[in-house]
């Protein structure tokens, strides 16, 4: 079915799709101001001020930003590498592409549990190290889950996001890459030059919406953080949930303030996307 975007249906449809999140956003804003929710006390900026003044908020924000940037960057890098490696129509390359996108349907929570089973201090790696006589107790294994750097969390997120970004990269290269690269090669460019001057510019522009989607998803992802993140600093989604389900009711409006911060983080990613695309469009 095609919808004429100038018709009434065409205009109402996007509004209808946007309505539930907008109502949610409206509720979050009014709840963070104490107008609705479990601890309403009239319009007040008390909760906003309290959350801003709390160092835990900034630690959570900074840590979540680190996880978002690190996992998105590594997943992008791996996806680009896969796309550049397995791009021909040969059987081996087609097989490589299939294997690369295989983890796509695996739920994030399964990826997190796998990360726990592999990287935990009593996990697969630790058991191998134990059998090899490198460590004798679980505590001797360097902490890779519930750890300050978020190694286990980043590992799980990267493993889950690679197939998504690789799928986009494969499609971009298939549709747009060939002719430019051929031209570059016929002008005498070597492999590395062809990649950096012909393949990469096409690839990153095509992948950018996917990269932004991954970054915004990672910033708000709860279940992987719940299974793998440390207790300090607490990841932003965990801190939000902790406050939303706190037994002390006056802590809950602060959860809506934190939800607003997560939204701002995602909006910043979308704004950066808009600015980058706008700039390159002007340059071209």
């Amino acid at each position, binding site marked *: 079915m095609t919808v004429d975007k100038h018709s009434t249906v065409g205009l109402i449809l996007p509004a209808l799709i946007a309505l*539930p999140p907008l*109502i949610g956003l*409206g*509720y979050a804003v*009014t709840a963070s*101001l104490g*107008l*609705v*929710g*479990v601890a309403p006390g*009239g*319009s007040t900026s008390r909760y906003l001020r309290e959350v801003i003044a709390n*160092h*835990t908020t900034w*630690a959570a924000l900074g840590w979540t930003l680190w996880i978002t940037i690190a996992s998105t960057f590594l997943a992008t890098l791996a996806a680009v590498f896969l796309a550049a490696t397995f791009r021909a129509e040969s059987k081996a390359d087609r097989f490589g592409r299939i294997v690369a996108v295989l983890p796509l349907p695996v739920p994030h929570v399964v990826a997190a549990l796998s990360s*726990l089973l592999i990287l*935990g*201090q*009593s996990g697969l790696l630790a058991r191998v190290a134990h059998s090899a006589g490198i460590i004798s107790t*679980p*505590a001797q294994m360097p*902490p890779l889950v*519930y*750890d300050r750097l978020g190694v286990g969390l980043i590992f799980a997120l990267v493993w889950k996001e690679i197939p998504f970004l690789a799928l986009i990269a494969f499609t971009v290269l298939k549709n747009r890459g060939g002719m430019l690269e051929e031209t570059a090669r016929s002008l005498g460019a070597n492999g590395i030059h062809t990649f950096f001057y012909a393949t990469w510019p096409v690839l990153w522009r095509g992948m950018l919406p996917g990269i932004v989607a991954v970054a915004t998803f990672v910033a708000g992802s709860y279940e992987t953080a*719940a*299974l793998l993140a*440390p*207790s*300090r*600093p*607490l990841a932003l989604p*965990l801190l939000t949930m*902790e406050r*939303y*389900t*706190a*037994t*002390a*009711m006056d*802590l*809950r409006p602060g959860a809506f303030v934190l939800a607003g911060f997560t939204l701002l983080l995602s909006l910043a990613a979308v704004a950066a996307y808009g600015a980058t695309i706008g700039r390159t469009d002007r340059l071209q």
Partner: protein
Amino acid sequence: MKRAGIAISSCFALLVSACNSDRPEIVDRAAIARLPWENVVRLARGSAVTWRMWRGDPSINAYIDHWVVPRLARDYGISLRAVEGQGPEIVNQLVVEREARARGVADLVWINGETFHNLRKAGLLWGPWAGRLPNAAALDSTSPIVMRDFEQPLDGWESPWGRVQFAFIYDTVRTRDPPHSFAELKVWIKKHPGRFTHDQQFTGVAFQTALMYSLSGGAGKFEGGFRPALYKAASARVFGWLEDVLPDFWRAGRDYPLGVAEMHRLFANNEIDFTMSYNQNEVVTKIRQGVLPPTAHALVVTDGTLANAHYVGIPFNAPNPPGAMVVANFLLSPEAQYEKLRAEVWGDGTVLDVAKLTSEWRSRFESLRMDSHAVPPAELTRHAVPEAAPEYRERLADDWKRLVRDRAR
């Protein structure tokens, strides 16, 4: 701005009520309080009851879905549906429903302690009703643990369902000589660095509360409502005790497992030597599920371990209070309480006074075989101490996060 809040709430009401249009209101709420019990049962017959409860334990889910649900359908034609939602989530959900002026979803909620306190304070419960249940006559009415919920009188606003007691779990092979008091535990932790921790949630706070009692002269000191000065002195002792042993905690006290599921996993994988549970019999069910090793054993400290009861309440906007009352009454029946008590089912303590039951039921309860991994009932009772006012727990949870967890080195 207030108008904006109302507009948002109205939009929400529209959404929520659209979702609930297939659940007609059964009867005038106020009239139910005056109806004879037979009429309540008649109104409940053939109705649907939605029960919002914690669904995180396969043993509990199996008891509800495969034992309670078919019996209610057979005896009363009631179709019971258990849905996910616990503690603070129940409060949040009911607040949103009230703001949206929407008809409620849940007829029955599984609650206790702070949740009961918050629901009562916010006027989100319907009642009083629990005193009208015929099976309530057999309740253990002399037990302060059953008849007072974190020191709060029930007054018929919730009906007791089960009782539990905090217990440590250790491995009899790994730890041959476990500590039996908090003083011994401190020595043990210092002797075995990196092998002890607690979680960040409900059970961890229960551990700290029991520690607070022990360091401040016992549970009796905390009776009679929340006293800020007492809390200040008692909590300082708790944080002092922790400060002293934290370097010898798991990960030197810098990180903490999120909940008991993570604790059980760390314990089963030999990363720590103790896990804990706010159910004295969880060790038995978790061994059966293969979560804990068969050499695991429960342990209570002689300083006193927390015991509390859990209850069912009816939300202020429940569509089917008669159905909820019949379900609550069934849950209090000797057969439902007996089944729940069996270690191979759930191992949840009974709230009934067995002496008030018929001789047949009395002997059945008394002949229940004690699992060798559990703590004997007499020992449990000897060391059980009730929960103090909910504010103690709320403040302790908040202060621990602020002063210990978020400040970890």
